[in-house]
């Protein structure tokens, strides 16, 4: 384990042990990483690492793996600036990781309740680690609902995992796509419709929502309509996150001031701000 005084200061070397394209297009890739020597502290679902590919700029990446494993998993979109380098990386290459950073999903608050996970597109990455946790500790929650929306059947992340989760009796998994092909036999429509249909108890539910802002806004409306109170709705505001290096703070560079996970009533105002 990295000494406590060094946590978040220097990148820790990790070897890429597996690299899997999530989509046929190769636009999104999942890396599995093992520490060369000292491992970073165990992350909590919702946290992120700062990733240092050799010869390229660092960038933050949500952690999608099992929180109780030394292995670290990152699913990355190849359109980020550093990905020119990321694309040429191979299994066996070494990168640097710094972290874990950020506020985690408040899993403890969900103990004994219905846990409703609403994911849109790449938002499934952060919620995947909760599902890993829920499968290890199935008695922690009454029932776990994964409601996942994405663009089309070709863009379903972690396809094998989703199929495996659907078979778990304590997980209620529903996937919907905005555009279904002729061969698609699943749901077609926006993810908010899955919220309307899911049979969770709103008085005993806590909801974690992760995806594009507009998807989160409508998901919150659907959850509120279902009877889930604002203080039981949490959002991952990754795209609104700013680093403290910009604010002149003296803490280590890129350490976030707060977030990226917030209770809805703390960030409600963001949803009424018009984009410039």
């Amino acid at each position, binding site marked *: 384990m990295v000494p406590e005084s060094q946590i978040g200061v220097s990148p820790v070397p990790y070897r890429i042990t597996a690299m899997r394209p999530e989509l046929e297009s190769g636009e999104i890739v999942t890396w599995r990483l093992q520490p060369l020597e000292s491992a970073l502290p165990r992350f909590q679902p919702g946290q992120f690492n700062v990733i240092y590919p050799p010869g390229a700029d660092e960038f933050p990446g949500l952690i999608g793996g099992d929180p109780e494993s030394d292995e670290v998993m990152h699913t990355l979109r190849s359109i980020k600036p550093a990905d020119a380098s990321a694309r040429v990386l191979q299994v066996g290459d070494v990168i640097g990781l710094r972290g874990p950073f950020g506020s985690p999903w408040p899993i403890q608050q969900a103990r004994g309740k219905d846990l409703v996970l609403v994911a849109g597109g790449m938002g499934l990455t952060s919620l995947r680690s909760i599902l890993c946790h829920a499968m290890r500790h199935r008695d922690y929650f009454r029932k776990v609902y994964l409601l996942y929306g994405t*663009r089309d059947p070709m863009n379903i992340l972690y396809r094998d995992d989703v199929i495996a989760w659907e078979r778990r009796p304590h997980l209620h998994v529903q996937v919907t796509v*905005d555009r279904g092909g002729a*061969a698609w036999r699943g749901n077609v429509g926006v993810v908010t419709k899955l919220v309307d249909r899911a049979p969770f108890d709103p008085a005993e539910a806590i909801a974690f929502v992760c995806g594009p802002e507009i998807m989160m806004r409508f998901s919150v409306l659907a959850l509120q309509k279902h009877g889930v109170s604002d203080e039981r709705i949490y959002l991952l505001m990754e795209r609104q996150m700013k680093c403290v290096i910009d604010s002149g703070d003296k803490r280590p560079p890129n350490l976030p001031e707060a977030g990226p996970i917030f209770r809805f009533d703390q960030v409600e105002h963001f949803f009424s701000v018009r984009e410039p």
Partner: protein
Amino acid sequence: MNIAEELAGHPFCAAMTSEQQAKLANCARQQSFRKGEFLLLQNSQAEAFFLIVEGQVEIKVAQVSPGEAPLETLGAGEAVGWSWYLPPYRWHFDAVACQPTRVIAFDADCLRSLMAKDHDVGYAVTSRLLEVVAQRLQATRLQLSDVYGAA
């Protein structure tokens, strides 16, 4: 479960009085569709209105492309079709059961007559139907805006 009980338990009728539900029940019957069976066919006369009790229905545009990819899927607790409400009373889309599906089916003529005679029932059905239409419009806008990009 009889039809009055099913109507009472359906979200479409949740805000209606039991008296209004009883009047609606006079225009309704329980109906089942096998997988692959059509509830409504594009361009045909809109003679019914459906509330899904169980199962799943795909809404499709016929003759758009080979395979007729579904525009939307509807499930238990949802309503199918509003062309029965507006002249010329013809369906604009296909709706096909993609699972064995059980519905409450309203006779459109009976329902329109009831709504014309009893404005309270007419208002209750119209406002609920408008809510459904607004939700579908909102959902369609979101679907078209491609909020996810590639994943």
